[in-house]
């Protein structure tokens, strides 16, 4: 038996206490802070659920064509979406799609600047690396408890939990991509008098783009892996179907919802991947 060095009970109590204190004093302001995100999510969800199904499929087909310039891929993506509708999960699928889009969008907005900062400041990088490790390995239920306490059940904590889990690969790959930029090329741009901004936007980001796109791809995949957990705290959508299937021991319901999630995963994966491929090819010989 390991000797008790200090009272862990006290430690847990004090952690609980400070979270409680945070909740009682700041829960309202946290919620107010997140209102804009919630508004965007609700707007997007209503848009997707309200639009006729064929319009959504057409939209996805156009986006995939714009990303890949391939009609074949575009057709395949439409078929995947049609499949989700055909197995009767259209509405839930749209809810999940909206959550995914918002979570991915926010991840990009957060992830790329953080990655840039990490590449620029070694000290910040040293701090961030362990933080990223924690974000990726800590079981998500652990931070779901305080997140739910702060924001209540619903969509906002679901977005937060998804971002915490999904943004690290984008941050890492942005940082890596910028670090991998050929030092000779960067030196040449400095020799011609480029300032920090011109170096970043003219050289570093364009050359890091293939890695950043790979990061976005990873982020969408990880975000989809979170949908079941996110639905436990009130995100609805396909994850909820899976949960119901588990609770009622309805294998069929769970399986169909699972297949719909896989379909969405393939959709996001192929679109972001072909966009990334096309961008890195365009860099070299357009």
């Amino acid at each position: 038996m390991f000797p008790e060095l200090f009272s862990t009970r006290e430690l847990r109590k004090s952690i609980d206490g400070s979270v409680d204190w945070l909740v009682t004093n700041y829960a309202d302001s946290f919620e107010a802070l997140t209102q804009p995100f919630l508004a965007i999510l609700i707007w997007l969800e209503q848009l997707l659920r309200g639009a006729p199904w064929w319009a959504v499929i057409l939209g996805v087909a156009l986006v995939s064509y714009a990303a890949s310039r391939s009609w074949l891929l575009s057709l395949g993506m439409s078929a995947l979406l049609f499949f989700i509708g055909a197995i009767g999960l259209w509405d839930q699928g749209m809810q999940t799609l909206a959550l995914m889009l918002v979570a991915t969008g926010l991840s990009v907005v957060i992830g790329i600047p953080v990655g840039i900062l990490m590449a620029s400041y070694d000290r910040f990088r040293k701090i961030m690396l362990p933080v990223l490790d924690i974000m990726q390995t800590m079981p998500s239920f652990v931070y779901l408890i305080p997140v739910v306490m702060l924001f209540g059940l619903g969509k906002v904590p679901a977005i937060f939990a998804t971002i915490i889990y999904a943004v690290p690969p984008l941050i890492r790959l942005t940082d890596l991509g910028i670090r991998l930029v050929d030092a000779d090329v960067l030196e040449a741009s400095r020799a011609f008098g480029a300032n920090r901004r011109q170096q970043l936007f003219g050289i570093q980001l364009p050359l890091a783009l293939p890695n950043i796109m790979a990061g976005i791809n990873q982020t969408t995949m990880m975000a989809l892996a979170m949908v079941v957990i996110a639905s436990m705290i009130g995100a609805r959508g396909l994850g909820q179907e899976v949960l119901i299937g588990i609770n009622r021991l309805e294998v069929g319901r769970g399986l169909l919802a699972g297949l719909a999630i896989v379909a969405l995963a393939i959709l996001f994966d192929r679109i972001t991947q072909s966009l990334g491929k096309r961008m890195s090819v365009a860099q070299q010989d357009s």
Partner: protein
Amino acid sequence: MKIQVKNIYKIFGNKPEAQLGKVKAGMGKEALLDETGHTLGLNDISLDIEEGQIFVIMGLSGSGKSTLIRHFNRLIEPTDGHIIINGQDVMALPERELEDFRRHKISMVFQRFGLLPHKSVLDNTAYGLQIQGVGKAERAEKAGYWLEQVGLKGFEEQYPHQLSGGMQQRVGLARALTTDPEILLMDEAFSALDPLIRREMQDQLLELQQKLHKTIVFITHDLDEALRLGDRIAILRDGELVQVGSPEEILLKPADDYVQAFVQDVNRARVLTASHVLAPAKLTVTLKSKPQQAVELLKEHSSEYACVLDGTQLKGLITVLDAQRALNDNADSLANYLSSVESVRSDTELEQILPNILSNNGAPIAVTGKDGGFKGWVSCEKLISLVA
């Protein structure tokens, strides 16, 4: 005076300033590394580079050439010392002015080209102008002009990875020239190219320089290249300046064994010219001289021949026999008794003179200046002592 380098020291490591005293007190590169773990990059370098010169910096790998050239545009900060360009201390420039200085006054060609892989050849060439904020149309026009100058017309829309090494370096050169800088820094710009292309690029650089008269700092570890391009040559060893001088001085009066080792394998016949083997004429007569005078002069100097000048121009050679013949014929002048003489210009490489000497059966070869004026004879003794 264009560029003045004043007592530049560069120490690499964690606390370079703390080691400066030791270096100034005379500690060498190896001792510094052993004792403190710091690398001595440059040790008290002072140089003057004249406007319009090609100034070559030479040295073995690790001697500090790249480190030194990166001080001119302050890509590397010195540990101590100053670089003064047109009276302005580059080390004192604040960030903004430094960027401005790099944009307009100085540009650089890199050993590994340093082209931007995501931009077309035209956009690469126009990069300096883009940084300056010049409009698109003007950029395209100027970049197009310089691409044509380096022989890359028609490749504007290609991307760097589609070009050969030699072509990529031409883009690098065009890019550096497009901002019309006063100073051009070239860090082993031709070292990555194969010998034929390299020679072509050297010719092209010399040709451009004839028109442009830039101040060029050129780095190489190849003595042939240094001698071919350099108006002056500086030699670095372990971060110290060993010798600065004209190509001839480096070749003929190496300062120490290090420089000697550098120059001993060089093909002097390719580097030295007729002016290095010039012997002044002992005896000249003018075209108007009487045969009588010529015969007397030749006898007096007991010489077999004399050269005959009209003003400064060489007309030919008069031998003792021919002068005697003219005297016997009671001729007015020597004009009809001259024998022709082989001549070379003073900037002709020795390599090209050697065959002439062999085919000439020991007859003298005259050396003339650029204007055709007579300067003297090729001295076979000098030639042999230099080339052998």
